[in-house]
C-alpha cells in the first residue's frame, strides 16, 4: 500500500511517500494511524494529534472509521487551506 504525507504531516514524518506492508489486523484509517505511530518517534510525533489529521483513500476524502481494505493509496494531511 502506498502512503503519502503532505504539509506538516510530511515535515514531521520526514518523508513524502512510501510503500508499506500493513499488518492484516489493520482495518480502518484510525487503526492504520495507530500502527503508524508505533513505527518510530517521527511518526508518533506526526500523528500525536490524530484527530486533526485528515485522510484520503485513493484520492477521495475518508473518515477515520473508513475501511482501508483494497486501497492502493492512502494520504494523510492537515485540514486544507487553499483558495
Amino acid at each position: 500500500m502506498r502512503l503519502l504525507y503532505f504539509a506538516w504531516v510530511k515535515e514531521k514524518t520526514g518523508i513524502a511517500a512510501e510503500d508499506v506492508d500493513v499488518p492484516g489486523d489493520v482495518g480502518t484509517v484510525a487503526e492504520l494511524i495507530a500502527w503508524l505511530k508505533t513505527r518510530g518517534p517521527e511518526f508518533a510525533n506526526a500523528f500525536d494529534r490524530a484527530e486533526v489529521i485528515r485522510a484520503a483513500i485513493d484520492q477521495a476524502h475518508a473518515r477515520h472509521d473508513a475501511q482501508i481494505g483494497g486501497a492502493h493509496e492512502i494520504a494523510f494531511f492537515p485540514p486544507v487551506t487553499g483558495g
Partner: protein
Amino acid sequence: MIRVQTEDFDIGAEIAALKADRTDIGAIVSFTGTVRDQAGQATGKVTEMTLEHYPGMTEAELARIEKEAQAHWPLQASLIIHRTGTLKPGDNIVLVVTASEHRDAAFDAAKFLMDYLKTSAPFWKRETGPQGSKWVEAKATDDEAAMRWSARKDAAE
C-alpha cells in the same frame, strides 16, 4: 473546466475565452483570491506564500465540486484555476468564473465553488515572513461557510 498551474492567469483573457462566440450567456461572475501581505496584523507580515497540493486528488476534488455546482444551478460555463508553488503578496492565487443566463445562479454558484474549494480541495498554504515560516491553519469559519450550503440543499430537497 479546471486547471492547476504554477503560472499566473489573466482574468480578462479567461473570461473572454469562456464567452468566446457565445451569445446565450447573460451573467458572468468572477472571484479572484490574491496573496495578502497582512502588514500590521499580530501574526506578522507575509513576504512569500508557498502552496503545496496533492496532484491527482486536487484535480479530482475540483472536478467534483464543479460538477456539483453544475447540478445545482443552471450554469452555462464554469472555470476554476488554482495556482501552486511560491507566490508573493499581490499575486493571484485562485480564479472562479461562472456564467449563467441570470445573475443569481452565477453569483450563488461562484460562492458555492469557493466555499467548497476552501474546505475540500487539498491545498496547503505556508506563509513566510521576517519571523520565519509557518503553515496556515484552517479556519472554522470556512467550514461553517461550506456547511451552510449543505443545510440549504437539505432544506430544498
